[in-house]
């Protein structure tokens, strides 16, 4: 019997191939999940369309998300605020009637967060608005979204890159963003 390594390797070929196929499958699986089952655009209790509000009717973001310029959190409009308009407008639509039900039962609407940062991150909206950022730079062109979709992962590289290129003062100091 020869002592060549290659001959000895022969029988392991198939095993290797099986491994390779498995690996390939893994990649496919991940890809499939992230593309077809992504949580980027969750289904909301009310099918609210920013396209209609911010896009067609050109309601400014800060009209509903009133605190973005003055507080850490942009704030989600109160049910009362929604009703402010929808007492009159488009009251016949089923989605609006959902809203009206919430209002009549004095229940809040359980919106699902699309953009969320972990608890150990300190993200003040006001600093970024006052620095002259457009909402779209992080949230994407919401005014064209029928369903709000996360465009940027809001992970650390996303923040750091921006801080670096805009040369934010102490923008790379850990405690600027972490708490």
């Amino acid at each position, binding site marked *: 019997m020869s002592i060549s390594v290659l001959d000895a390797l022969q029988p392991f070929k198939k095993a290797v191939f099986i491994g390779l196929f498995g690996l390939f499958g893994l990649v496919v699986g991940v890809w499939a999940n992230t593309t077809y089952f992504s949580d980027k655009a969750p289904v909301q209790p009310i099918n609210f369309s920013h396209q209609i509000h911010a896009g067609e009717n050109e309601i400014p973001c800060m009209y509903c998300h009133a605190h973005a310029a003055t507080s850490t959190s942009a704030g989600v409009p109160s049910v009362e605020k929604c009703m402010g308009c929808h007492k009159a407008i488009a009251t016949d639509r089923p989605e609006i009637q959902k809203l009206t039900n919430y209002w009549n039962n004095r229940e809040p609407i359980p919106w699902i967060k699309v953009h969320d940062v*972990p*608890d*150990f991150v*300190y993200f*003040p909206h*006001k*600093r970024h608005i*006052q620095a002259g950022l457009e909402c779209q730079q992080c949230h994407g062109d919401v005014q064209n979204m029928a369903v709000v979709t996360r465009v940027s992962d809001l992970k650390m590289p996303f923040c750091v890159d921006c801080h670096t290129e805009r040369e934010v003062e*102490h923008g790379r*100091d*850990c*405690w600027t963003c*972490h*708490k």
Partner: protein
Amino acid sequence: MSIVEKYKKYRKAGYFDKFDYHWGMTIDLDRCTGCEACVVACTAENNLPIVGEENYRLKREIKWLRIERYWDGDYPDAKLNFIPILCQQCDQAPCETPCPVGATYHNQDGLNTQIYNRCIGTRTCAVYCPYEVRYFNWFTYKWDAPLEQQLNPDVSVREKGVMEKCTFCIQRIRDAKDTAKDEDRRRVRDGEVKPACVQSCATEALVFGDLNDPDAKVSKLYKDKRGYKVLEELNTAPSVVYLKKVKAHV
């Protein structure tokens, strides 16, 4: 900036003098009564966990600020001295060098900071710290509902395996800077930032402020003739100055 320059810059003690702030504290031992109000204030502000009786027995309490007691003499001439010990925010901090992941470092305000979510828990910093003011999360501690409603949203709740320590209430500093920016001020006013312990102190023994500001109350007290730094001989260059207790008799 080349790595060499960076290295040079960051190895020089007090390199942050050229930054806006150098936060420091003075503790007047002649005012301090050891009443522990600051300790509870710190607990409330910084989401310090309730470790429970058994862990306390094992000396696993987490108190970023603690008051140490030292007796002089014996009855009838016994004298009890109190000294609050918190992170001294050393300019040459022994705890900063050994962290393999750089979870603790000196930031531009002269603060010796700890990044909880970077910490992997080698606990080396705690070994190297001569003041023993670094506290380790041996477990993930829980709050019995509804106690968790009190937790301060400006401070993250630490999980098991993470080192934590006094931050000079950096969240309050951050808020103050925010306000300053909102009001188009370059700097935070003296006395605008008060860590929880300083705020609560009834005898005003603790004074906090910016040492880069010569007019700040803290800068003045820093030069007081009673002033000294604990374990100065270790050359850790602490940012906390203690004012020695006055010994008097009628």
